[in-house]
C-alpha cells in the first residue's frame, strides 16, 4: 500500500483546502474523534467531501479517514471542519473528565474489561 500524501504536492493540498489558514488549536478534531455522516453524499460536492460522507455512514475515526483519503491528518481535519460547519457530519469527541486530560476511571475499567475479553 502506498503511503498517504506521497503524491500530495503542496499545490494539490492548496487546491483541496482553498489555501485557507486553519488554526490548529481551534480544531475540535482529535485523531480519534469519531465522525458520522448526517446526510447522503449528494451531487455537487467536492469529491473528497463526498468520499468522507460515504466513509462515515458508520462512525469513523479522523485518523482512519485520513488513511483512506490518503491525505495528511491536518488536511483531513480542514475538510471535516467544512462538513461539520455545514451540518453534514457530526463529531463524537473522546470523553475526558477534566481539562487535565486525566482519564475517567469508569472508562479505564471498561477498557480493561474489553481487553480481557479479546
Amino acid at each position, binding site marked *: 500500500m502506498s503511503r498517504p500524501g506521497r503524491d500530495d504536492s503542496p499545490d494539490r493540498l492548496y487546491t483541496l483546502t482553498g489555501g485557507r489558514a486553519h488554526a490548529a488549536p481551534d480544531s475540535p478534531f482529535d*485523531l480519534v474523534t469519531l465522525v458520522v455522516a448526517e446526510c447522503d453524499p449528494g451531487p455537487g460536492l467536492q469529491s473528497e467531501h463526498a468520499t468522507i460522507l460515504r466513509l462515515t455512514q458508520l462512525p469513523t475515526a479522523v*485518523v482512519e479517514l485520513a488513511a483512506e483519503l490518503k491525505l495528511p491528518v491536518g488536511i483531513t481535519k480542514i475538510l471535516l471542519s467544512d462538513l461539520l460547519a455545514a451540518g453534514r457530519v457530526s463529531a463524537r469527541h473522546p470523553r475526558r473528565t477534566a481539562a487535565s486530560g486525566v482519564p475517567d476511571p469508569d472508562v479505564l475499567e471498561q477498557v*480493561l*474489561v*474489553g481487553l480481557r475479553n479479546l
Partner: protein
Amino acid sequence: MDSATSETRTPLGASADNGLKIVIVGGFGVGKTTLVRSVSEIRPLNTEETMTRAGEAVDDISEVRDKKATTVAFDFGRITLDARNVLYLFGAPGQERFWFLWDRLFSGTLGAVVLVDTRRIDDSWYAIDRLEHHGTPFIVACNDFGGPTYAPRQIREALDLDPHVPLLDCDARSRASGKQVLITLVEHVKKQYAGSAQVSPVPEELTL
C-alpha cells in the same frame, strides 16, 4: 482511492462514540508495527501529519510551501472494546528527530508501551526520557528477538527505570502476548491515576 482499502474496510458499530489512544514507542525496528498488527482487528493503516517546528499541526498551507514543516508518518491499528469504546494503537515514529512533535501528535493518550530489544537496550533510553518528561504513564516490554536474557534488575538498571514502572517480556508477533502488554499498561494507568487523584492536575500541554 476506492480500491482495495475501502472494499476491505471493517466499519465500527453505529453506537461507537469514544475513541481512546495508546502509543507504542521504541527504537527503529523494535517491533512496534508487529505489535500493532498482532492485536489490531484491522490491517494496520498508515497516515501522516504535517507539523511545524513549533510542534503544532500546520495551520497554513504556505508553511508547507515554505518547507517550514516536517511530515511525520505513523501506523495504527484498532480494537473495538465494547459497543461504545474503541481503542486505537499508534506505532510512533522511532527516529529521535520526531520526538519534539510527540506530545502534540499523541496528546490525550492513555499511556505508552516502550518496546525494547535487549540487544539494543540503549535505543530505548531516549523514549523513556521523553515519556517521563511529559508525565505520560508507560510500561516497558522487552520484545524477544532471541537476544541475551537479562534479569529484570539488570534491565531496570540499564534503563534507569523507576521501580514502579512495570517491566515485562513479550513476543510482539503473538496476539496473546500483545494483549497482556496492553492489559499491563492499562492496569498501571489505572493505579497511577488512582494514586494521584488528589494531586493537582498536570498541565495538558507541556513544552519540551
